């Protein structure tokens, strides 16, 4: 078995035992990246030299008996939405092409201190806005299971990197499903922690009250490993929870008997692909066989999740992205006026023109669309009907979950209505694209945790994902439930044949 076939848990054991060096490990994955990234485009930047230097340092420390961190020698891919001082941080946008942060994100700092070997920054939908990774300014990402299909988004690069064995561990971010949905479409495991569980310092903000950073890997056990490093209170983030971090791996094997899992009938409506529905139902049956009980629950306002999300997120984004104006960093218009074409050409001053043209050039169409929508929803006369209204419905959506969790421990169901769709299939219809988030936005709106993991394959060989959502701070239970499913199934171990071995 080559190194790139092994799980992070396995590799860590081998590294700790001295059976494999960090350099050998890093080389194996870096070579894999070199061999496949041209096709997949999962990575925007690869950190070969520094990664090997770091790996060598870790090997030297291990050999001389010096202490090393809990992830020492494990390669980790980081979504390009997180600040890294030694690699560019572009958020897959022309606006930040070449941008070099002067500080590391809190999560990146933790990874470095843990001895992780940061192999590169992964591709994503621009500024985390999208569900297919087709909105990147630096090229789309291909699903390793079918190169003509999307990997999902916005953490498409991280998902594809794991699925293609380019890294054993990856970091993604999830605002409306951006870890869970691509994990589902790429046949891997991804966790969106409870809001505030992982620090957002250094995460380039999209929608501040919804964004969370989370682990992506081949298995729940590997996600648990990564969570132990990245979770924790950060006094530099006012929304960070000051709550101790559980030893996530320690409880993975505790029995699931008595676990109550909710099933939402409304999830199984017309839009749900029948093969997806079948695998999801089989997963409920598997949990029952393992001693869990399944209960019908309702989330009465779930249907309003997508419109609520698509008011709150763009509104916050319109404000978060106002800083990208060409003044202090990022892309600035070079002064060349384009040909007249009926667009906006009158500006109050040269300064305003610089702002307007820099932003028009720097942002892609989906980002512009959401900034426009958010600006509109917050503007005078519309605030109450749109943004404020959405905040009220948000409370109702959260209450639905609180009520449901009085009856069940977790809620199960699909993570995506369909398996991976073809590239270009949804790009013409923004609303159609927004509906890919149907099953996932509620988790972010309520601030609770959700995990997605593979539960089967379609006849066409595409992965199908299953999602578990749990109350705030239920990550230990989510990881345990996913892990134990993975002890009796092997969906998560399968690999695509669409790529060279």
């Amino acid at each position: 078995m080559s190194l790139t076939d092994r799980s992070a848990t396995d590799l860590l054991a081998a590294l700790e035992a001295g059976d494999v060096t960090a350099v050998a490990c890093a080389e194996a994955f870096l070579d894999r990246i070199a061999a496949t990234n041209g096709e997949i485009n999962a990575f925007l930047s690869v950190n070969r030299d520094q990664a090997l230097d770091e790996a060598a340092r870790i090997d030297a420390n291990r050999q001389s008996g010096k202490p090393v961190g809990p992830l020492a020698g494990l390669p980790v891919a980081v979504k390009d939405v997180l600040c890294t001082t030694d690699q560019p941080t572009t958020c897959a946008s022309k606006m930040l092409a070449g941008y070099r942060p002067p500080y590391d994100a809190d999560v990146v700092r933790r990874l470095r201190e843990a001895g992780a070997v940061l192999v590169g920054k992964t591709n994503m939908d621009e500024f985390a806005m999208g569900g297919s990774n087709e909105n990147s300014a630096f090229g789309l990402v291909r699903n390793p299971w079918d190169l003509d299909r999307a990997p999902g988004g916005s953490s498409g690069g991280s998902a594809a990197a794991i699925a293609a064995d380019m890294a054993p561990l990856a970091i993604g971010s999830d605002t409306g499903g951006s870890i869970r949905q691509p994990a589902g479409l790429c046949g891997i495991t991804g966790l969106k922690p409870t809001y505030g569980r992982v620090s957002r310092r250094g995460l380039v903000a999209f929608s501040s009250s919804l964004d969370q950073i989370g682990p992506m890997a081949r298995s729940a056990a590997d996600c648990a490993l990564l969570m132990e490093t990245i979770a924790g209170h950060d006094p530099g983030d006012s929304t960070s929870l000051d709550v101790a971090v559980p030893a996530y791996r320690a409880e993975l094997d505790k029995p699931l008997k008595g676990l109550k899992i909710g099933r939402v009938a409304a999830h199984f409506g017309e839009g749900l692909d029948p093969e997806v529905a079948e695998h999801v139902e089989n997963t409920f049956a598997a949990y029952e066989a393992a001693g869990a009980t399944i209960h019908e629950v309702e989330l009465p306002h779930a249907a309003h999740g997508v419109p609520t999300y698509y008011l709150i997120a763009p509104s916050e984004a319109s404000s978060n992205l106002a800083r990208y104006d060409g003044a202090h960093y990022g892309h600035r218009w070079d002064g060349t006026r384009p040909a007249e074409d009926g667009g906006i050409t009158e500006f109050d001053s040269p300064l305003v023109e610089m702002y307007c043209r820099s932003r028009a050039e720097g942002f892609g169409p989906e980002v512009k669309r959401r900034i426009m929508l958010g600006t509109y929803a917050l503007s005078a006369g519309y605030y109450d009907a749109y943004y404020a209204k959405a905040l009220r419905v948000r409370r109702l959506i959260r209450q639905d979950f609180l009520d449901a969790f009085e009856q069940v421990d977790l809620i199960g169901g699909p993570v995506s209505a369909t398996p991976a769709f073809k590239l270009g299939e949804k790009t013409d219809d923004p609303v159609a694209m927004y509906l890919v988030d149907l099953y996932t936005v509620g988790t972010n709106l309520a601030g609770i945790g959700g995990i997605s993991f593979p539960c089967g394959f379609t006849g066409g060989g595409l992965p199908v994902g299953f999602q578990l959502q749990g109350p705030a701070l239920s990550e230990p239970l989510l990881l345990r439930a996913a892990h134990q499913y993975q002890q009796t199934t092997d969906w998560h171990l399968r690999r695509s044949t669409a790529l060279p071995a």
Partner: protein
Amino acid sequence: MADAGTPASELTPADVKKVALLARLALSGAELESLTAEMSKIVGFVGQLSAVDTSDVAPLAHPLDAQNVFRRDELAASLPTADALRNAPRHDGECFLVPAVLGDSGSA
């Protein structure tokens, strides 16, 4: 899915232009056109929320119920000026440079 109870979900190009300037986006002619259609559609879509009864419901701005997070009034290291200016499109070693800011400040 437009609902009669919401403000008009049909945006005019003039509406879109106004929003674009507020958002500091120099949209092209083609963008103005496509955004007018797209925004109308999206606004119509999200406008379905007006049908939800929220008369007794307070807005939920933060998913947490957290309050009172503070830091102490203690000095921390600032960035060296070179780092602060490093990504600036134009600077003179001390300050950021932008097209002339004339007259009063931007806030009323």
